[in-house]
């Protein structure tokens, strides 16, 4: 009885979600056909869909996607290596934590995207400035969570392992890492999200190639249909990447 009402409620909320989506698309369609909204502001969904299909089948997205993804990969790898190493080194002493943690937290609260003009000035319009910006933005959540993970391992666990004769390596492998991993993984996921955001953002503002650049280019050329198709494409890519990272995180968490 209870289980069946719960299932019915879940079905009902799925129904509401589907209805919401359908109403949204219907409104979009009606707005463009009946209410005479200018196609420059809102193109009809049907040509947008066919353009989307066109982009997928002709594969013209591959060049931009490759640029964006390689920038993302480079930025994230740099940020993850730097953040893990710096965070671990800082977390090894109580004094260093008290010196560096507030510093990192203060910098993290500043929107680093502000410094994009400086990055462009130093690294040029190409991928280098995006990689540098993405890496420095996603460095801070990773470093902070590594400090939080390794720095606040329960002393009891460390003392117990030591008194049972654990070596440095054993302490690291069997006590510190399992204790710190959940927090570090959360930090890495946040770091990945902000890296993706800042790379697409900096491509939108100043760049020569990449998905963000493509969207701005189409907007300036007033090719609204194609632009909407690309927006759908980028949102889908972002959703897929986020889902992949979440799945990876869950898997590592379970394997711990």
């Amino acid at each position, binding site marked *: 009885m209870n289980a069946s009402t719960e299932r019915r*409620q*879940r079905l*009902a*909320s799925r129904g*509401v*979600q589907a209805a*919401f989506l359908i109403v949204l698309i219907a409104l979009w369609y009606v707005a463009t056909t009946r209410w005479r909204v200018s196609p*420059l*502001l809102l193109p009809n969904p049907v040509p947008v869909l066919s353009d989307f299909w066109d982009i997928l089948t002709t594969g013209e997205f591959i060049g931009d996607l490759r640029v964006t993804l390689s920038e993302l990969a480079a930025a994230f790898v740099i940020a993850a290596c730097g953040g893990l190493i710096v965070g671990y080194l800082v977390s090894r002493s109580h*004094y260093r934590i*008290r*010196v*560096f943690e*507030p*510093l990192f937290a*203060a910098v993290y*609260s*500043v*929107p680093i*995207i*502000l*410094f*994009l*003009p*400086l990055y*462009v*000035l*130093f690294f040029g319009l190409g991928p280098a400035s995006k990689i540098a910006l993405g890496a420095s933005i996603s460095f801070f959540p990773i470093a902070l969570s590594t400090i939080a993970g390794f720095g606040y391992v329960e002393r009891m666990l460390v003392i117990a392992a030591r008194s049972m004769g654990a070596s440095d390596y054993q302490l690291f492998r069997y006590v510190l890492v399992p204790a710190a991993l959940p927090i570090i993984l959360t930090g890495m996921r946040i770091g990945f*999200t902000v890296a*993706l*955001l800042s790379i*697409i*953002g900096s491509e*939108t*503002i100043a760049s020569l190639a990449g*998905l*963000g650049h493509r*969207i*701005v280019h189409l*907007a300036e050329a007033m090719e609204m249909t194609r*632009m909407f198709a690309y*927006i759908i494409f*980028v*949102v889908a890519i*972002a*959703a897929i990447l*986020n889902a992949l990272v979440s799945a990876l995180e869950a898997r590592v968490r379970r394997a711990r």
Partner: protein
Amino acid sequence: MTSRTTWTAAALRAWLRRPWLARIGVVVLLLGVWLIDPMFISPPSRVFMSLDALLETRGVPAALRVTFWELGIAFVLSVVIGLVIGLPLGLAPFARRSFMPIILLLYGTPQVTILPLFVLYFGIGPASKIAFGVSHGFFPVIVTIVAGVQNIKPILLTSARSMGASRYQILRHIVFPHMIPSFFAGMRLAMTGVLLGVLLAELYVSTAGIGYFTTLFTQSFDPTRLLGLVALLAAMAIVLNEIVRRAEVHFSRWHSE
């Protein structure tokens, strides 16, 4: 005598080991690294000296003032919209189960992909920046308010109802007081989001406002004034963040005691 000198030496060493002192040392060291290459990166002293020249540049103070107002309006709007959507969602379980996945999905997608659309719809003036800031700011308010309402212990609601509290009384005396900590946490996240959104839009529009000057200084290779402008904006961001964070600490105290 000797014991006294060793005592002062130890005290001095202990005093030198204060974390905040070392923190200042690290910052000074970083600024020192800055001095090495004065061609590309203007030394901090020169940036500081040129701040008044920057503020005398025609249009810069006005652009900074406009950005400040955009941040304020976008923040207030995000909090209001977040409250108006978040409270009913938190109080109605069915609506929450139906719409929260949609909201979380939208929150997770990078809105910067539709930044050109905002400029197209709202123009290059303050409206597009405010709208883009709001689009970043109101999602965290919704999410934290829903979480806050959900975390109210059911026993409080049950006992209030069994003692005959009206719907208004429950809202006034149970829901609102328990929402305050999560509300302020949401406001802090909203401020972070609004700063990101407004500054992104400001940088994107390169024909007016901050974006015009950053583009101008970059293209005319004037790192001193560019750094000065960025430093002023960063100071603005830090002050706004700090105000909201202080408010959060202040108003959540009773709850955690």
